């Protein structure tokens, strides 16, 4: 299964006028049955609702009305603060770029416009891509993102992303390592509450775990430059595991308040997991 097999299914109706691949709200050609109406000034006689017509004591002819499929803008908001440059089991920025690329491809396949917004402590305009359905545009934006070396001191600009998004309800993928305080996470999600936000937490099994072997390690925070000495030992490994689970539980609780649980992607993108996520939520 390749990354191009990523597929997102939505449970809400797009209000978009433009036909697309998702359930919409507008009546039109499609196979999303809305209701049956007597054949009058609206409707298509080809969509005859035989059962309703026969059951009608006044012997009117009923036809079915359908809703047309609509498109949904897909926006990838990617965190490019310096911690995204972490190289553990994998290079986190590369992982984010790959995921963005796969999403762009999926969007292009179903005809959804794709937009990209990158931000660290500021919204990086040079990396942004406005919603577009052009495959070339998306590829160029992804290439720019791939060449970018994350160097932001933090990801506080995530709070200012909301005005950059389409006004219509969109599917927003928030690609971040979630290395920020819980309040900020909560505020970011609140500011994006208008949209369907999938928080993709890019974890790294080596970053969030400690070796059980004895040793001394001095960790340096990539963003703040703060340092901390750690005595590596089995107890610390357990504490790391505990802290990691607790943090994930907290993130889950925050994200659930805004509609969806986070999608945790560790080390590599698993399309099965990705697709299952959309079927389950």
């Amino acid at each position: 299964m390749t990354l191009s097999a990523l597929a997102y299914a939505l449970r809400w109706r797009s209000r978009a006028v433009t036909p697309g691949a998702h359930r919409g709200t507008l009546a039109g050609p499609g196979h999303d049955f809305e209701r049956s109406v007597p054949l009058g000034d609206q409707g298509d006689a080809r969509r005859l609702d035989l059962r309703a017509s026969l059951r009608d004591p006044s012997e009117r002819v009923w036809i079915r009305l359908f809703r047309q499929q609509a498109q949904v803008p897909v926006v990838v908001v990617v965190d490019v603060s310096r911690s995204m440059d972490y190289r553990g089991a994998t290079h986190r920025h590369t992982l984010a770029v790959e995921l963005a690329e796969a999403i762009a491809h999926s969007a292009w396949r179903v005809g959804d416009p794709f937009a990209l917004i990158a931000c660290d402590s500021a919204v990086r305009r040079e990396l942004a891509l406005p919603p577009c359905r052009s495959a070339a545009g998306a590829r160029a934006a992804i290439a720019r993102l791939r060449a970018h070396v994350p160097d932001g001191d933090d990801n506080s600009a995530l709070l200012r992303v909301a005005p950059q998004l389409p006004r219509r309800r969109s599917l927003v993928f928030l690609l971040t390592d979630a290395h920020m305080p819980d309040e900020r996470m909560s505020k970011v999600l609140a500011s994006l509450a208008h949209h369907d936000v999938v928080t993709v937490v890019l974890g790294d099994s080596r970053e969030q775990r400690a070796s059980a072997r004895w040793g001394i390690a001095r960790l340096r925070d990539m963003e703040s430059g703060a340092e901390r000495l750690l005595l590596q030992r089995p107890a610390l490994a357990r504490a790391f595991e505990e802290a990691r689970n607790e943090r994930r539980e907290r993130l889950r609780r925050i994200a659930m308040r805004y509609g969806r649980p986070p999608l945790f992607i560790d080390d590599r993108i698993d399309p099965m997991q990705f697709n299952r996520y959309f079927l389950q939520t």
Partner: protein
Amino acid sequence: MIAFDHPQWLWTAVLALLPLLWHGQRTLAHGWLPGVPHDPASRVLAAALRTLGALAVLAAALALASPHRQGEDIERIGTGAHIVITLDRSASMSDGFAGRGAQEGDEAKGRAAARLLEDFVRERPRDLFGLVSFSTAPVHGLELTADHDAVTAAIRASAAPGVGLTNIAAGLTMSLEQFKDKPVTGSRVVLLVSDGAAQIDARKQNQIRRLFAENRSALYWIFLRTAGGRGPSDPPDPEKGFDPAPEYFLNEYFRDLGVPYRLYEADTPDALARAIADVARLQNQPLRYRETPPRQELGGLFMGVSFLCSLLLLVARSLEVPAWSR
């Protein structure tokens, strides 16, 4: 109190601040430290490593300044006395005692004294003895020593018939010189055994007085009276005309020395034995004295501390992991 031979090296102790400012450890990048669990043990270790570093430098700096400790004086109680036997070897010592019933063939004074002193020495195994014999000039017999065989041999040798006059001042001076530069670990006694006395001129008197005061020595004078001779307790009789009575004035001078002093007049060997027994009893009292302990070099200690700290740091260094969580 700790003192230093080269205090200028103490300036290098400022370098001990460096480990507190720089840790010198390899750092490993991590995405988000606030997400790392708090670990008190690690914090203690971090502080401990820095302290060890500072301590290593500090101890090395102190060691370079070659520290040493001059201890407080310690009060000790000594039991062994230091006794310098000052033996008269003038010609008259070959004569007999003055006591009643003295007759030809009696033991000579010198011989009796030697015999009794030998017993005295044998009974006091913990004491140090020195021996000075004098007649016209003093003879340095033995340095203060614990070798009692040598002491008895020296006493026995001095029992041989003597010659010349009684020059007490020179004998006493030489005896007191024996105590010079020796630690005071027991009471000091000059045991003067003589059968006569002599005038001591004023200069010598002052010198002897000073030596007694410096060496804190007691003086016991065992006077062996010659037949027909006078004793120190007989005052001069003005009716007899010119009478220098040197024994009497010497006794007066000794009393005036300001040190413990006793006079024993012995007319017979028995009296001599009693006198010696009395001296032995007096000198069995313990002596309190202060002793200055030798200076204690602390450089090695500080060097050891520095080495130990460095060793621990080396262990910590070898425990450093090259990459996080691998």
